[in-house]
């Protein structure tokens, strides 16, 4: 039998010890949160509200990772054309969009009691929102295209261009803000908070890796099932 033109070989990824990894990640996250919350003193201005920091900042950190992943996998897909890269990029984007969404919501929940408004046109907030919208565009495109090959090619192009735009958005929004008056931004970190934050960075990174991996497994399994169908169709009567 000749090999398919688009995907020479599809390796059905095994769940392997990933579920164990998942449980470990969960346990580690609980520990990290507990550690961070108990070791940090109540903030001078914000009181215990400050504890949102430990979900908020790591969540925003995940955003950067996932955007980088979308960029890398999209390029790889355009170059090699392997389905797995497309699905990895898509999985990263989904996880990324979720975390950016979380960052936004947490930030707004945090902002209301701290700043008195849900939203302010601060540089960091605004650029986060714009990047979120770029992610939304990427996912909307995927939703609107049925043909897998076309979906892969197009979303890869959108993913690469979107990622190129990230630093430019960042810069432009900051200039836009700072050229006028500066809004009250969160004060810089004190060491007491730092350890709790670092350990949560690690926990969230593990979580992102886990989620992307499982999402990817699901997508690949679906793809592989289709290919099995192909084998049946070509081989049988």
């Amino acid at each position, binding site marked *: 039998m000749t090999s398919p033109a688009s995907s020479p070989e599809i390796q059905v990824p095994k769940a392997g010890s990933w579920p164990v990894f998942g449980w470990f990640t969960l346990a580690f996250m609980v520990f990290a949160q507990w550690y961070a919350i108990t070791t940090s003193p109540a903030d001078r201005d914000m009181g215990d509200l400050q504890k949102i920091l430990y979900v908020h900042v790591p969540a925003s950190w995940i955003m950067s990772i996932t955007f980088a992943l979308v960029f890398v996998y999209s390029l790889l897909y355009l170059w090699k054309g392997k389905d797995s890269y497309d699905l990895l990029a898509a999985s990263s984007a989904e996880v990324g969009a979720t975390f950016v969404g979380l960052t936004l919501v947490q930030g707004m929940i945090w902002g209301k009691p701290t700043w008195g408004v849900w939203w302010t046109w601060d540089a960091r907030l605004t650029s986060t929102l714009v990047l979120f919208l770029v992610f939304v565009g990427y996912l909307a495109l995927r939703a609107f295209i049925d*043909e897998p090959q076309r979906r892969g090619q197009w979303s890869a192009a959108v993913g690469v261009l979107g990622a190129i735009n990230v630093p430019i958005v960042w810069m432009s929004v900051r200039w836009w803000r700072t050229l006028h008056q500066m809004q009250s931004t969160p004060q810089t970190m004190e060491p007491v908070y730092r350890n709790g934050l670092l350990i949560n960075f690690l926990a969230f990174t593990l979580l992102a890796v886990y989620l992307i991996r499982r999402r990817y497994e699901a997508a690949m399994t679906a793809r592989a099932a289709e290919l099995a169908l192909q084998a049946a169709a070509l081989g049988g009567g």
Partner: protein
Amino acid sequence: MTRVRSQGGDHWRRIRAIAWKDLTTERRSKAGFNAVVSLGITILVLFGFALGPDAQALRDAAPGALWLAVLFAGVLAFNRSYQVELDTGALEPLLLYPGARWTIFTGKLLANMLFVGLLLVIVVVAGMVLFAVKVPEAWPTVIAVLALGTIGLVTLGTFYASMASRSRAREVLLPLLLFPMLVPVLLAAMQASKALIGADLMLEAGAWIKMLIAYDIIFVLATHLAFEHVIEA
């Protein structure tokens, strides 16, 4: 088929043919350009109503309103540029011509550049009248800013339209993909215009202009490289 071809000449021929065809069909569809221009001005007027009767507030918002009007009106042109291929199934024959595919993109880019450039000129003049903005002293720089902004807008718009127009939700998908990507270009163009109109520090405008140039170069290159993958799929 033994045919001696000069690669460069061939490319240029194709680019010209595409641009000519797009502009001709656009011109023939009578109301095309006039309608887009009228729409741009209509949007300006709507902004005028929305921002209330305060003259100073209007003047302050003018660069933003101008660019948004061009953006909203221009978006329509991009989809039209592929619509003409899709309405009658002409995209397939187009893809069947042998030769480099990026020339299709360049041709459409040129046509759209002319279209949106003209639109911009008219909307800007109308906007200056409506919002009582004076001709700034640094007007050559303002023109450069406008040109740079147009390049960024048209490049990304033409590129994304090549996908959006072939999807199920063309009208929605194009702005949805395009607008967030254009935030830097909009901000740069608006801020540069603002700085220049307000006879502000040239320094400030300078930084924005540099950014616009970088943005334009990056995206013109990236879209040309990516187009082949996109149009084929």
